[in-house]
């Protein structure tokens, strides 16, 4: 799906024309440069490689530098490929701006969620814990309970939900309404929350 890259700034609230209060997330989507145009004939698939921001010179690896030199663009901070663009209309060095989206449009936002560390099953998988305080129950309130049967199957099934690392996953939030677009400031406001911490990079994807 066509889209662009942005940076999550934070949440605030605005009021619509009816005076209703709307919680919004502010995303800074500075113009994304087309790094390269991938074509079916040459690369096996159609896509646009978009880059956002500028990378410090000391952080650019040699293979990266070669790629950017070949396409004659400055090294972007983050590169991502998006399919679904009309590829004939774009060439290397073109910019995709925030006016790519419209107010009132419904979009997807994809990002990396905040890492929560090693968490128990109640927080990680919404287990209920072991209920009841009678029949000898003690100190099992947040435990997962039984993790399987006995002699059959004599093992724990693969994929059993257990405690472990929570968060830091790629999360896509669908059906977010674009409330407002500020073209001059390159800002886009979507209704509701999006994954990740402030200043993290997110993908804005057209439906």
């Amino acid at each position, binding site marked *: 799906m066509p889209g662009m890259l942005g940076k999550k*700034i*934070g949440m*605030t*609230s*605005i*009021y619509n024309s*009816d*005076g209703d*209060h709307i919680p919004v997330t*502010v995303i800074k989507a500075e113009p994304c440069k087309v790094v390269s145009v991938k074509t079916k004939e040459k690369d096996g698939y159609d896509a646009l490689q978009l880059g956002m921001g500028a990378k410090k010179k000391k952080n650019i690896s040699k293979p990266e530098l070669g790629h950017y030199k070949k396409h004659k663009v400055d090294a972007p901070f983050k590169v991502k490929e998006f399919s679904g663009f009309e590829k004939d209309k774009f060439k290397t060095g073109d910019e995709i701006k925030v006016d790519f989206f419209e107010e009132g449009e419904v979009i997807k936002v994809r990002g990396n969620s905040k890492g929560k560390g090693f968490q128990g099953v109640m927080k990680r998988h919404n287990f209920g814990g072991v209920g009841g305080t009678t029949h000898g129950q003690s100190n099992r309130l947040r435990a997962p309970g039984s993790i399987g049967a006995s002699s059959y199957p004599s093992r724990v099934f693969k994929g059993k939900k257990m405690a472990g690392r929570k968060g830091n996953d790629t999360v896509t939030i669908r059906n977010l309404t674009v409330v*407002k677009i*500020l073209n001059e*400031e390159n*800002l886009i*406001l979507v209704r509701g929350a999006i994954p990740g911490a*402030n200043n993290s990079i997110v993908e804005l994807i057209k439906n």
Partner: protein
Amino acid sequence: MEKINNLLQDEKAPKLPNFKTGDRIKVFVSIIEGDKERVQPFEGDVISIRGSGASRTFTVRKLSSGVGVERIFHFKSPKISKVDVIKEGNVRRAKLYYLRNLSGKAARIKNK
């Protein structure tokens, strides 16, 4: 973020007078009935002010035929046309949630 909040600030936001928790105020809220718009007053005691910036709110509590009614308003809401401060209260707390458990004479707030 602060810059952006200033940028997004609504010109329609009302200019409210200064009031504190414990004050009795009258809030004039516009409500839409069908296709008509009218202003409805809501008079009561401010029992809480919370939040900051665009999401700052205040809670007004009143007794309506013996039943406690509370409404939460946003400071920046364009629906508020006016706020009148009727009297200033003398209270020792920032949040007057204890009023919910009191009734009659005990639920009064001292005047300043």
